[in-house]
Each structure stands twice: as structure tokens, then as C-alpha cells.
């Protein structure tokens, strides 16, 4: 199918291969990513999210199963995995600890140059990426270390965007940011999807953030995918999610409480904006 960008097919992966009884970090994981989707990936710590996202650009090779990018098996002997890492851009958790260049520009240019782009084009790509993540032009010659936490995250994202990815995978990009930093970064990621059609995979521990931004949510538990559905359907399973160490968005809990208190509200509501509309509607 035209819009299927990436297919994960029965992935199995175990870190400690010396013990056959060791727990699998990924246990028969399959899903399809479509072009232009915004997928939220949630799960308790240790559920396998980071392991899974490192498979998406072939940083990790599965013990069995495979990944197909636009129809081609990325683990085939002759597959160009270096080019793949430009197309499936991965922003690691706490990427600010991996910034190492002297200026923002040289940091962002590193990726495209490494991919074989000539210096001039790489520079153009870098300028473009810096603009797309909403960093000020003045930042370009500054040391990444002098920037704020939220700005450093943007530099890390820009250095992946400069390679012009079709899929952008972000591993907990908002962890540790202040509320404004969190919502600005989330807005920026939503814009990449909406304006540029980039497919997004967002790993997050914030149920409220994925409820707000994602078109679809994949829930992992102990290396397996438990749910893969639109957000409202996933968050219907409040009890099961709590069992797994997760939760529902705050608005789900509120709407359920209101229903119990006798308000004729729709409980399929997970965002603040929809909750406001619904409450005003039933009270008018």
C-alpha cells in the first residue's frame, strides 16, 4: 500500500542472549506506520519503548522478525542502513548530553555531512532545520552548552531534521522541561506533522500530552504491544492501563466523575478543550 511507510513484523529481541530464560525486551512486536501519522508510544519504564525505537532505524538488529521500510527489508545484507538513518530520524532521550560540537551550526551540520551531503547543501539544510524548530537565528554561532534546556532539545531535533527525515522518532523529548517548554516543543512537533507531513512517533510518559497530540496510540507492556488504536479507544481501558503502571488523561477521570454525579456527559473525552465544550453544552 502506498501510504505504508514502515512495517514492523514480529520483532523479538533479548539483550542477554546467554540465558534462554532471560526476559525479552521485545516479544513479538508488529505494527504498521502510515505516512503522515502521529503515533504516541506509551508504556511503563522498562516496557521496551526505547528498544523498539532503536529498531526503527536499524540501530539494533532483532533476534527474529524484521522491519520493512517502503517495502524493503532494512536488515537485508545490501540494504543502505546509513541512508535509512536519514529517513528515519531518531532523537534520543536526554539528547542534550550528546551535543558535542562548539557551535549550534556545526552540531546541526554534522548529520547531513556525515550522510555525504556537500558542505554548502548541508549548511543550507542546517539553517533550514534551525528555523523549523523555532530557534532564533542568533543561536547559530552560540555554543549549544549556553542554551536553555528546551533550546538544547531543539538543537538535537534540528540536527536530525537537517537530514530531511520522513519519519521522526522522539524518545521522551519533553522530560524535564518546564510547562512552557513542554507545550512549545509539543506544538512544534505537531507542526512538523501538519505542515510538512512528517510521520511522528512520540514516546511519552505524559498521558495528557499523547491524548492531546496523537492520532493513534501504541501501548507497550513487558515487551509486547497491548493496545494499538485511536486515543479515545485506548483510554477506555483505564483499569488495564493502571494495572500496567500507566493512567488515563486527567480529563477522562473528570468526565467519568461528572457522569457518576448525574451529568449527562459523554465520557469519550480526553482533552481539556473537548471537556470544556462538553461541560458548557450540558449546562446550557
Amino acid at each position: 500500500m502506498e501510504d505504508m511507510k514502515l512495517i514492523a513484523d514480529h520483532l523479538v529481541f533479548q539483550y542477554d542472549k546467554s540465558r534462554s530464560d532471560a526476559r525479552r525486551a521485545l516479544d513479538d512486536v508488529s505494527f504498521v506506520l502510515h505516512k503522515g501519522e502521529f503515533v504516541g508510544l506509551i508504556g511503563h519504564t522498562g516496557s521496551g519503548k526505547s528498544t523498539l525505537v532503536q529498531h526503527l532505524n536499524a540501530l539494533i538488529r532483532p533476534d527474529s522478525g524484521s522491519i520493512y521500510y517502503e517495502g524493503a527489508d532494512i536488515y537485508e545484507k545490501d540494504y543502505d542502513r546509513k541512508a535509512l538513518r536519514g529517513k528515519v530520524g531518531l532523537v534520543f532521550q536526554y539528547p542534550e548530553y550528546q551535543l558535542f560540537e562548539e557551535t549550534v551550526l556545526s552540531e546541526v551540520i554534522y548529520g547531513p555531512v556525515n550522510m555525504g551531503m556537500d558542505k554548502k547543501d548541508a549548511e543550507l539544510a542546517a539553517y533550514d532545520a534551525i528555523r523549523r524548530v523555532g530557534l532564533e537565528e542568533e543561536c547559530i554561532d552560540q555554543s549549544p552548552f549556553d542554551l536553555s534546556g528546551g533550546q538544547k532539545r531543539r538543537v538535537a531535533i534540528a540536527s536530525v531534521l537537517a537530514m530531511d527525515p520522513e519519519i521522526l522518532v522522539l524518545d521522551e523529548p519533553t522530560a524535564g522541561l518546564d510547562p512552557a517548554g513542554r507545550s512549545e516543543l509539543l506544538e512544534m512537533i505537531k507542526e512538523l506533522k501538519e505542515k510538512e507531513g512528517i510521520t511522528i512517533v512520540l514516546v511519552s510518559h505524559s498521558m495528557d500530552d499523547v491524548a492531546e497530540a496523537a492520532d493513534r496510540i501504541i501501548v507497550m507492556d513487558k515487551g509486547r504491544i497491548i493496545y494499538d488504536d485511536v486515543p479515545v479507544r485506548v483510554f477506555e481501558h483505564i483499569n488495564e492501563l493502571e494495572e500496567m503502571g500507566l493512567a488515563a488523561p486527567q480529563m477522562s477521570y473528570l468526565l467519568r466523575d461528572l457522569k457518576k454525579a448525574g451529568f449527562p456527559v459523554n465520557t469519550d473525552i480526553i482533552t481539556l478543550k473537548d471537556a470544556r465544550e462538553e461541560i458548557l453544552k450540558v449546562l446550557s
Partner: protein
Amino acid sequence: MKKKNKDKQPSILKKASSFLSIRNLKYEYIRRDEENNVEGITTAVDDVSFDVKAGEFIAVLGHNGSGKSTLAKHINAILFPEEGEVILDGMDTKDEEKLLDIRRTAGMVFQNPDNQIIGQVVDEDVAFGPENMGVPTAEIAQRVEESLKTLGMWEFRNASPNRLSGGQKQRVSIASVIAMHPKCIILDEPTAMLDPRGRYEVIRAARALNEVEGITVILITHYMEEVIHAHRVLVMDKGKVKMEGTPREIFSRVEELKRMRLTVPQITELAWELKKEGLPLSDGILTREELVRELTEYKHRKG
């Protein structure tokens, strides 16, 4: 010692009831180049003063870089004031002789669950602190048991820390601090890297230490929902304490908080927006229960 303090720090006498007293604290980070020339100065904490009473639960909010961690590190003498003073339980943190007492009085837990546990086994890690303090062996075992039980981690005493979830690791780190019998615990974004259950476990543990054990808690966080049970909230902005009050007072000031790169709990924000649409709701609603109650009352009045 008392006498010396009396001469030098009249402020403690004036504030006899305060457990922690911070007066005009200022701290700068100075960046130097290879030749040791000053390249830049960041005023991380700028003329901060406040008092904390024994047994209080204080939450500290503030944008990234507002100076929260720098301030926190002054409380247990990891950093020392350049200007101003920090008096913890009657001890001036600049008094070198008191360093161990100060560190014992206020313990600190940081953000990353993966780099605070040094023991190979949970109970070993919790025993380190008391061992270093020279607590007798028999008492160490007792303290380890007490602390792990308080944090609900006793059943994991023989586990290897890398087998634990993030929330469990943070509770072990807290247990390790508690085993030193501190009067105060400072939690610097302890939940930033945790999943929802981990966050819940850590916050519940902090509240229990405060309510049951009477330990003074200072909690730094970016999650507004975590501070609604605090006795008092301090809001930092660019190195200064800009607001101080109960959670309800603070979270009634939605627009000011947003200007300082903060927000309010989602329930508070919803109530605030509903109020703007004309519903007669109180300012600073903090919990679902309150919001449901006020909406129900309104519905009945309306008929």
C-alpha cells in the same frame, strides 16, 4: 557555637520558630576561558529570602534555569552562599565544623533514578549512609528495615537495583536518605523521568514522610498536580522568588504563572476557562472533587 551565632546572626533569634532560614542569598556561576579570564557570569540565585518551619511541605516551581537546583544545593551545603546566609536547624551552612551535621539534617534526592544507587543490593545501598556516619552495626540493620518499610520497599531488600522500576529506584534513594534520620528531605525533580505509577509512588511517599514522620519536605517539580497538597508553594523566576502562598493562592494566578513559563493543574485550568465562559466557579479549584461539587451545586441552583 550558639553564642557565636548570636553575635553574628541575629536573624535566627528573630525567627526562632524557623527550621530553615535563607537571608538575601545570592549565587553566581562564573565562566572562565583557558587563560582564566571571566567569560560570563550567571546570577543563578538573586537576593532570595524565605523561612521554612519544621514539618512544612514546601513545593518549589520555576522555569528551567530559574535557580531551583542552585537554591536547593545551598540547603545541605553542597554550595555555599556568596552573599547572604543559610541557617539550617540553627547551623550556618558556612560553618565547616557543622558540615556533616548539616548533610545529616537535610538529605537530597535527584532526578535520575539510575545514578543515585551505588549498592549492588537494595539493603546494602540503604546501609551506606548510616555506616559512613558511624552508626553501630546493630542499629544500622534496624534503620535499614525501618526506612525500607516506610517507603514500601522492604520486600525488595535483597533485590539488585537494576531489577527495579524507576519509581522503585527513587524510593530506594529516598530510603537511603531517610536511614540517616534527617529532619528534612529535598527532592529535586524526583519524578521527571518516571512513568505515571512511578510518579504517584514517589509523591505518595513524600507526603507520608511529611504527614506520618513529620519530616520537612522541599519538593522541586515541573508537574503542577504534584504540588496541590503542599502547605506552601514558592515560585522562582530568573533567580528570584516571585510568588509565595498556598497552592490555592498560587494557582489562582493563572496568567502570571503562564508568563513565568509555568502553568496550573489541568483541572484548575479547566475551571478557570469555564469561569471565563460565565460559570460561577471559585478561583484556584485544585481537585476533581471540588470541580464536580461546584458544578453540581450550580446545576441545582439553576434548576
